[in-house]
């Protein structure tokens, strides 16, 4: 309850349920696949899909994917913090994970927020919607392309 109410206060332009009847339907979906060149690290291909040509700037899109790749690299980075976490976890038989949020989880939250932000500012106004890759098991970035509802003619 609280979650939705806060959102409604912060974003007063939220549609009501009745408005949702006018929600556009999905014309197509594009899937940005994983790029395995650097091994099992989570990276996505920055190749611009042709279906998005009329909808968004190539550079904008590549910028989004590159930022996501950097964020995932940051999440999986093996540095001092992950070693420290690992050692601490090992000493406590990993029970520390029940009360502590790992670095990876923190970055995942950051990624979710970034995607939300990108959707709000850039993609939704263009009739596109990014889906957080975690919702697809970190396999693809799913981009929904919505129908162009411009008056009269379809595209």
């Amino acid at each position, binding site marked *: *309850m609280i*979650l*939705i109410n806060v*959102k409604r206060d912060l*974003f007063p*332009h*939220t*549609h009501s*349920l009745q408005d*949702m*009847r006018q*929600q*556009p*339907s*999905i014309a197509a*979906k594009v*899937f940005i696949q*994983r790029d*395995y*060149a650097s*091994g*099992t690290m989570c990276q996505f291909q920055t190749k611009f899909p042709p279906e998005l040509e009329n909808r*968004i*700037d190539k550079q904008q899109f590549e910028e989004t994917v590159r930022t996501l790749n950097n964020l995932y690299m940051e*999440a*999986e980075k*093996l540095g001092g913090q992950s*070693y420290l*976490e*690992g050692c601490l976890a*090992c000493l406590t*038989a*990993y029970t520390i*994970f*029940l009360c*502590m949020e*790992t670095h*990876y*989880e923190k970055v995942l*939250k950051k990624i*979710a927020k970034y*995607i*939300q932000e990108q*959707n*709000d500012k850039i*993609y939704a*106004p*263009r*009739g596109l*919607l990014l*889906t*957080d890759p*975690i*919702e*697809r*098991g970190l*396999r693809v970035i799913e981009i929904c392309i*919505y129908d162009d*509802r*411009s008056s009269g003619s379809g595209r």
Partner: protein
Amino acid sequence: MRDCEYQQIDPQTLTVPSVPAVAVPSITSPTSSDVLRPQKSTHKLRRKWEVFPGRNRFYCDGRIILARQSGVLPLTLGLVLLTSGLFFIFDCPFLVEHLTRTIPAIGGILFFFVVISLLQTSFSDPGILPRATPDEAADVEKHIDNSGSSTYRPPPRTKEVVINDQVVKLKYCFTCKMFRPPRTSHCSLCDNCVERFDHHCPWVGNCVGRRNYRFFYTFILSLSFLTAFIFGCISSLTYSTVVELVICFFSVWSILGLSGFHTYLVASNLTTNEDIKGSWSTKRGVEESGNPYSYNSIISNCCAVLCGNGGTKLLISFIVQLCMALPSIDCCKYYDNKSVEVNSENCPLPFFSECM
């Protein structure tokens, strides 16, 4: 851009679950069903793991995951508890009296590590990859049909990628309808694709994969120390110590051997699956292993395998469980129309599945 031509989609209404899907899973998560329930809903919301097509079983609201067959997990647990119990009850008083109090303390710590890591290995998500949505599967099929080189035709349903100058073949999984990421394998017992699949361990009743490998390693390491410790502390021959002796004698060799083997695997960043199949074997020549995932340094490999972002807490595995792919985010179907057939396949929310 022509953004004025498009009806503005309010991401809040369409992707409401995407933030809660990460932030909400917690002890209070049962209440999130109230949060996400649409106002005019007369539908019962079900959680994703309740409609998960694999053969796993879920308990505690999706926080605990077990394979369909728990294998001999009860036996493993029983043996550990029996041996340790006999040790603490019968041997420790004698040892405390004649030697030192630290013996039961050390035994207690080892026992704690063994039981906790066993339960973690058994009940956590090994790194299950959710199955592809119909849309995603269709997209992959489309690309398979379109691509194809003129010179060399690979066998159908494989894709080649180059990782660290090595060519790695990715196989298509017909059950999960996707190309398996590198090091992923499909477990027929659990009917899931598991990331960094090591093996399916009947002793713990679960697959061992990326997310629970460190628990498994801790388990076998601590178990080998515990069995060796109990074996070494046996000082007299009574009925209870004979039982302990027999159990420890037969298990210490196999457990120590297994620990040694997995230490080697950790040091070379290999999985049991790869080692058995000889994926990166010495057939490549005199040079050292062709393993493209190895950091070529024992310390780096150990750190990567044991301290990597794998086995995080159950909440992550809960999220992975929740991350069931969706065929379409069509909120009209969801919010609006009772007459549309909404089932677990086309539910738009990654968090809940709606059933009529």
